[in-house]
Structures are given as structure tokens and as C-alpha cells.
């Protein structure tokens, strides 16, 4: 957990960050969102002490960063800067190996780690390890930038518009990729952007800043549904069209009123008529669900393996709706990456979400 406690940064008589208090939860992506010049980068750089605040305190897991050696602090935090900032005189391997080599890892270990990370960011190590940054496309550089930040396995990642300077299609695929990565890695990420679409898509939590102050911080969904004031409302305005369905993550909108049991348990207990929603899970597979006494399973119960279609929690609402419409079912079961059932989604639910958001 990172706590910013009434942090202020003044340059002369200009106040860039003004008594900002913010708690950034562990293992989730927190977005700092706001118009250009509102103090996002300054805030981020105060966390790794590239900038010293005029006033206030910042604590990581309860320890003030001002009690730590700034060099050690920075080596323990992954940092992706605006415009990537790869070192042009180092190969990709050299770039990824910067922090590990500062930490005195031996060469073999650095090389293995670099290879591992390249695979993680979907670049073939045999092709890319020896390349120089200037031999990479913009999107590849951004991936290497992310890999470099992850090199020494930091728990905290600070990312300053990491996908900023890149075309929309590539940006979207990098965002998808980063979400998948985060599903496995579960780092504490502070992610700066002024792109509301990116914020809604990636953020578990969003903190909105204006003129150096915090305007609102909440989990993404709550923020979208209950903007604190006209400023937030206007900022979010850009997302309020049906097209933005593809920004909203299914996991944030599921109906969590359900019980899980095996088909056999259901038959034995005879609760199917009363329970509002039972999801049938036999072994690892979802066999179907029972809603108000009505059993919905896969088409052919005789089929050896009965696999009910499910939607990943990271999928967008658009994907969820598409799955629902294609299968013709009323509900889709939304699953986390490890197979846990997060809840269900239905077309009317999505319509309702859109109606709320599109007020």
C-alpha cells in the first residue's frame, strides 16, 4: 500500500501538487487521470523521489520513503517513463538488465531474466535480445520498456503514459497485453494517463486530479456511476457512448448473487425451484445454471465433455454481449483467470449499465 499524505510540491509560487492525499491499494492498477499539467507526473516522481516534495509524506507499507536511501528505493520500484527512455547504446538485453546489474546479478542470470521477460511481453528473445532500441518499432520499444521495469521483480510499478506515443490499434493491443500480464503478476501499479478510455479499461481504481488536487478517487465502476462533480462528469463524458462498451471490463459489472454447486448436489438438495441463481460446476467445468427453476445447460447433455461457454473477467462488456447474443443464452458466467466464478452477466444488465453511464 502506498499512502500519499497531504503531499505538496511548489515551484516558486506555482503549486504543482496541492495537499494530495491518496491511498494506493496493493496488487491493483490505480490510475492517475487528469488534464495535461494537473500534476500527474510530478506526483509519480515524488513516489520514487526523483522529485522531493515541498511538504507532506509518502509511505510504502507504512514506511516513509524519506527514511529510505533513494537509490535503494528506486531499484525496488519499476519505472516506465513518458516516451519510454530506453538507453540507445545498450541492446535490449542491456536495457532490461540495468537494474539487475545495479543489484550485482551475474551475467548468466541477467541474460536468462531478459529472455524470460521478452517472452512475457511477447517478443522472441532469439530475435530481440541483441537488437538496439533504434532497431525497434514504437510498440516494441514500449514492450521493452515494460519488461525493463519488471526486471528485478519489483512489487511496485510506476508507469507514466507508457503507451502514450503510439497508434490507437497498437495501443489497444498493448493495453490488452498489459492487463493479461497484470492478471498473473498482480503488482501494485500506479499508472498515469490522460486518456479516459485507457483509464477505464485498465484501472481497478481511478484517481482524478485537477490543478494539483485530488478531485475523486474510487473503484472504476463507482466512479463512472457516481461522478463527484461536474468536472469529473465532463471528463468522463467521452466514455459515455455504446462504442465504449469495449472499454468496460466484465469483471467489474458482474451480478454476484449466485450459489455454486455440482449438478448432483443440486438434484439431491432439490433447491432448484427456490434459489434465484445456481451455477452448476462439475469438476473444473461449468455445466450450466439454474435460474428460477429453469435449467440451462450445454446443448447436448450426452456429449462427453460438457463445456458451458464462459467469459473471462478481463473481457470487455462488448465481448460479453457478443458471447451472450451468439450463444442465445440469457446469462454468461464470468470467470477469473484461475477459474473462480466471479458472477454472471446478462444482456439486460449490460443495457442497464450503459443507461446508467450514459445519463
Amino acid at each position, binding site marked *: 500500500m502506498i499512502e500519499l499524505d497531504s503531499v505538496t510540491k511548489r515551484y516558486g509560487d506555482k503549486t504543482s501538487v496541492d495537499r494530495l492525499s491518496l491511498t494506493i491499494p496493493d496488487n491493483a492498477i490505480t490510475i492517475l487521470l487528469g488534464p495535461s499539467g494537473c500534476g500527474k507526473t510530478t506526483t509519480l516522481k515524488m513516489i520514487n523521489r526523483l522529485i522531493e516534495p515541498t511538504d507532506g509524506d509518502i509511505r510504502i507499507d507504512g514506511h516513509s520513503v524519506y527514511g529510505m536511501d533513494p537509490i535503494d528505493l*528506486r531499484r525496488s520500484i519499476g519505472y516506465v*517513463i513518458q516516451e519510454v527512455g530506453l538507453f540507445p547504446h545498450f541492446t535490449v538485453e542491456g536495457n532490461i538488465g540495468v537494474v539487475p546489474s545495479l543489484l550485482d546479478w551475474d551475467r548468466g542470470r541477467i541474460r536468462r531474466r531478459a529472455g524470460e521477460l521478452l517472452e512475457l511481453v511477447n517478443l522472441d528473445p532469439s530475435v530481440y535480445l541483441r537488437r538496439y532500441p533504434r532497431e525497434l518499432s514504437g510498440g516494441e520499444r514500449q514492450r521493452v520498456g515494460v519488461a525493463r521495469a519488471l526486471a528485478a521483480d519489483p512489487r511496485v510499478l510506476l508507469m507514466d503514459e507508457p503507451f502514450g506515443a503510439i497508434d490507437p490499434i497498437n495501443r489497444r493491443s498493448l493495453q490488452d497485453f498489459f492487463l493479461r500480464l497484470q492478471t498473473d503478476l498482480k503488482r501494485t501499479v500506479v499508472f498515469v494517463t490522460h486518456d479516459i478510455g485507457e483509464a477505464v479499461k485498465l484501472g481497478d481504481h481511478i484517481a482524478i486530479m485537477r490543478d494539483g488536487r485530488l478531485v475523486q478517487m474510487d473503484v472504476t465502476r463507482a466512479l463512472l456511476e457516481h461522478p463527484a462533480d461536474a468536472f469529473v462528469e465532463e471528463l468522463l463524458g467521452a466514455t459515455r457512448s455504446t462504442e465504449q462498451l469495449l472499454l468496460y471490463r466484465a469483471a467489474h459489472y458482474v451480478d454476484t448473487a449466485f450459489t455454486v454447486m455440482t449438478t448432483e448436489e443440486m438434484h439431491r438438495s432439490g433447491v432448484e425451484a427456490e434459489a434465484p441463481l445456481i451455477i452448476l460446476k462439475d469438476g473444473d467445468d461449468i455445466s450450466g445454471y439454474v435460474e428460477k427453476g429453469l435449467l440451462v445447460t450445454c446443448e447436448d447433455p450426452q456429449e462427453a465433455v460438457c463445456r458451458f461457454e464462459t467469459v473471462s473477467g478481463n473481457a470487455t462488456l462488448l465481448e460479453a454481449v457478443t458471447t451472450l447474443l451468439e450463444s442465445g443464452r440469457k446469462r454468461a458466467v464470468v470467470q477469473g483467470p484461475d477459474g473462480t466464478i466471479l458472477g454472471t452477466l446478462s444482456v439486460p444488465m449490460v443495457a442497464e449499465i450503459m443507461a446508467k453511464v450514459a445519463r
Partner: protein
Amino acid sequence: MNAFQYLGRNWPGVSAKIAQHLGMVGVAVAASLVVGLALGIVVSRPRLQKVGRAIIGITGAAQAVPSVAVIALMFVYTGIGPRTAVIALSIYGVVPILFNVSSALLLVPADIREAARGMGMTPLQVLVRVELPLASQSIMAGLRTAVTIDVSTATVASVVGAGGLGDIIFIGLSVVRPDMIMAGTLLVASIAILSDVLLAFIQRSVVSRGLSIPS
């Protein structure tokens, strides 16, 4: 006699002059490099950037001062002998090195420097691992200029009694021996070319290939 016959017949004496010449240049270049690098690094620190920019202006202009003038001036203070020559050459060689070092270091993008700091490099590590490698191309260019200038200027050092290949040329001049003048000139030119080729070779291994790729 032509120049080659002269060289063949007087080889022992000529080789001693070559050694003197190389010695003067070697010591002077080493001194210039140490001083130029050190000063260049100091004046390119963020707090001294104003000084750095002034230095770039001064050294840029100073390159127009004729090398003979520096030798003549040093002669006034330290008199006859190789010491005068070496000091003059060192001072003269500092100029292009300092110019290139400070301008290249000041040109290292601030965001690259900040990325390095943000990843937990100490100031010394930022300098050694990032700034100097990024400036290496330009530093090598300054060094090559200094070497070329010193090799040719060391010839003039003969007039302050420093020895070297200038002796052959100036004696040839006074006794009107074109073969001697030609021999001395050829040797000075060859040393200049060979040392530059050698430095070009070193440059290739010192400067990262990543920097020569067009971006």
C-alpha cells in the same frame, strides 16, 4: 638524393626524431585528454550548465588561435626545450577535447538521464554507464582532432628546441635540402594518418553500435 634515399641513409638518426616526436605528442595528448575529460565532465553538471555553455563558446573560438602562437607564448614563460613544447601542445589539445566533451555531455537528453536516475543509478553510475557512452562518439572525435593537430604542431616545436621531426624539416630548410624537407613532411603526414586510422579503429570498439543506427 630523394626523400627515400635520405631516410634510408640516416635511419638511426631519423628514428630517434620519430621517437621524440611521438613522445611529445603522446604525453601532450594524454594530458589533454585527462584535463579535457575532467573539465568537460565538471562543467556539464546540471548546476554548472551556464559555465558549460560559456566554455563551449570559449573553446569553440579558441580553436581559431594558431598553434604556433601558443608555442611562441609558452616559450616566453618556460624557455627552450621539450617541456615548453609539451605544455603548449597539451594546452592546445585540450581545446577540441573540452569542446567536444562538454557539448556532447550537455546534449545528453534530460529524460534519458532521469530514466537512469529513476532506475536507481548513483550519479557516478549515471555518468559512467549512460552519459559518457552516449557522448563517446563525440569524445573520440575531439581526441582525433587533438592528435592530428598535435602531430603537425609538434613539428613547429623544433624552433623552441624540442627536437622531433621538425628538426629534419627546419635543417633542410636552412641548408636548402628538398629531400630532407620532403622526408620530414612525409613522416609527419604518415604519423598523422596512421594515428588517425588507429583511433578510428579504437572508436569503433568504444562507441556502441546502437548509437550509429539512424533513428
